[in-house]
């Protein structure tokens, strides 16, 4: 598999490590919503098809990349820096007041 890092260009998949699903929402650091934390840590969409995920270019620039990749064909649909993809922790506010 070749992943085209937005900084380094096309590189072999051996330079990258898969980290997480991309769509998972980490609750705000101060959130006390236990269910949201549980879901964040343990539940996965695990799509068969186009899958939103975060990889790190650990053997290169070490940036985290938000990648959409088809898990059935391994074809990579898009790659962007994870940090440009909005900030997951801001998407959902704590549901139960602290």
């Amino acid at each position: 598999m070749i992943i085209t890092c937005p900084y380094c260009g096309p590189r072999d998949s051996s330079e990258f490590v898969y980290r997480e699903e991309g769509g998972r929402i980490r609750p705000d650091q101060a959130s006390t919503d236990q269910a949201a934390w549980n879901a964040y840590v343990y539940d996965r969409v695990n799509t068969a098809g186009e899958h939103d995920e975060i990889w790190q270019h650990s053997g290169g620039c070490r940036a985290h990349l938000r990648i959409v990749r088809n898990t059935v064909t391994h074809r990579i649909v898009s790659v962007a820096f994870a940090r440009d993809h909005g900030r997951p922790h801001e998407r959902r506010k704590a549901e139960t007041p602290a």
Partner: protein
Amino acid sequence: MREYSAYTLLKNALAGNRDWKPAWRKPDPKASYDVVIIGGGGHGLSTAYYLAKEHGITNVAVLEKGYLGSGNVGRNTTAVRSNYLLPENHRFYEHSMDLWENLSHDLNYNVMFSQRGCLNLAHTPGQLDEYVRRGNALRHSGIDSELMTVEQIKRLVPALDVSASARFPVIGGVMQWSAGTARHDAVAWGYARGADRRGVDVIENCEVTGFLRDGDRVTGVTTTRGEIRAKKVAIAVAGSTGRVMKLVGIDEMPIESQVLQAFVSESLKPILDTVLTFGMGHFYVGQSDKGGLIYGGALDGYNSYAQRGSLPLVEEVHSEMLALFPGLASVRVLRSWGGLCDMSMDGSPIITTGPLPGMYLNCGWCYGGFKATPASGWCFAWTIAKDEPHPLNAPFTLDRFHRGAIIDDKGQGATPNLH
């Protein structure tokens, strides 16, 4: 008279082998069953077999989307062992071992289970302590485990490099002698035949496309071969759990599907009579009765439903092979394949009622699915028949992750690709 024996083999040979019956019928699905099992792999078939044999429930269909045994039961490295650290795991796998030991007789089908042992090689004192901890845990549960010195290891596997100059010298190992290998396909075929002869309909080329519901309750399935109603619907589709659960409206699970590659070398005269694991990487190897070395390593490490591996992992695995067996450099790898693993968040499986009424779930097998086949089916059949788990699978719930009651043999946390 048993259907398969040396006598019937001779009798049939004399008759030109024209009288053998199909190993299982090829029935059309009926409109309804007491139990429908989705997944005609090892676990689904063994579940059907034990439902019929242990619980007298024979109005059962096993639905397989492709050919029978096309999933991981036919794509693994055939190792059977119960040497897990945690009691929840090793008790379960030891029950499996008990079933394995008599499986060929039970099924009247030679699954070629051979107890040639599984040896974990240790390379640092800390690692040896860790392995001894595990071995002692087994011994305290009545399961066999033995410490081996380097000299004993060398005698057992003369081709192994145990020199002190190795990059990671072997300093000892922990052996489970009752462990071994079995002929993987035969397990699927044996269970299929056993279930079939007890009245179970084993239905191939029948893909589930949706679930029939009555409110929350699951009442059957829609398939490429029509609607099938069932009092109970059981899912045993490890590798495809995510896909099937989405059909019933459950979009998130504590599971990632990942590819595990396996390899077989060309046939060689015997060189390795046990199963070995390498402690400074992720590598295991055995040799089949046909002579091929069967081996594998770590997961490719990313989500996949493709049954297709990546090249870097191929290179990694083979470098580990040579770290143990420098004499095998000119031996060649003949085949490789990829299996889809249901990697759970703690590396342990799920066998449970629910999560919806009328539904039963068996998944999350990670690497351990093949060796679990008998106990998985046995426990799942119990759970389906009695609507509650057997004590052996009671810890393997779906809600354990959220509760923090995790069963993490490797101590890696919710990082499936490290289990």
